[in-house]
């Protein structure tokens, strides 16, 4: 899967928006914009002081609802995706963070814990992709 060629300005501007959002949430409300945790805890309680989580998720999908998602190239069957989803859900709860919680918020907080988590999931994902290619050449 080659992916799109994304202009650097789009990568940087998109990342800047993500970081600004995470910074805003921490600076004003003192909340961590970690999406795996927000999703998991929204299942538990979505009212009162917990209501910010489902509200954040509502905001998260609004731009896509109005503008559309753009090109989406799934690289795997739904059964593989469901399996991947289980691994992502299980792993991120065990490690207490995903690409946003550890990769953006934790790194922004200069946490060695998050740096190690990020290095680990990026390295394992790279090995996973390489292994998959080796097992089924295109």
């Amino acid at each position, binding site marked *: 899967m080659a992916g799109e060629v994304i202009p650097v300005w789009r*990568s940087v501007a998109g990342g800047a928006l993500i970081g600004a959002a995470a910074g805003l949430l921490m600076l004003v409300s003192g909340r961590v914009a970690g999406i795996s945790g927000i999703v998991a805890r929204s299942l538990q309680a979505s009212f009162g002081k917990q209501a910010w989580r489902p509200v954040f998720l509502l905001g998260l999908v609004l731009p896509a609802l109005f503008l559309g998602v753009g090109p989406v190239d799934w690289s795997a069957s739904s059964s593989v995706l469901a399996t991947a989803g289980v691994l992502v859900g299980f792993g991120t709860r065990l490690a207490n963070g995903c690409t946003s919680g550890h990769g953006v918020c934790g790194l922004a*907080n200069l946490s060695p814990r998050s740096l190690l988590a*990020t290095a680990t999931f990026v390295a394992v994902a790279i090995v996973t992709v390489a292994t998959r290619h080796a097992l089924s050449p295109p």
Partner: protein
Amino acid sequence: MNALVALIAGVVFGAGLLLSGMTNPANVLAFLEVTGHWQPALAYTMAAAVALAFPAYAIVRRRRRALLGEVVDARVQSLVDAPLLLGSSIFGIGWGLSGVCPGPGVILLTTGSQPAFAFVGGLIVGAIAANVAAGRGHPSGGTRAWRRPYVSYRDRRSRF
């Protein structure tokens, strides 16, 4: 007020993910595929995100309070333990298989397509399973984790 902030943060976060192109699994996999046509876009996105979030975290770390008054324990976290490494490795396998992490996964639900629901359905099952497992393995005997399902048992000790 906190809800309004969360809504704005969510919208800006979602717009950023869309603009970065990281809602397309192929673009994530293009970053992870170091032996093929490697594309560094995800690294630029992450670096920009960390740079923009950094000042806010530095301010709150020093003030120990958010602007709205919430007391925040945003100390630098350096606890490294087995769940962190094991969990991140398991996440890495799922991420490498799919090219999807939780944020893009939620956004892809708006396509109403089967693959998106398959992924997020799996994500929820996995999150629940992690807490059931944590409940069994927890030194406290797990009753607390059982009473508070879906919340990681490491909640208090290690944020992020």
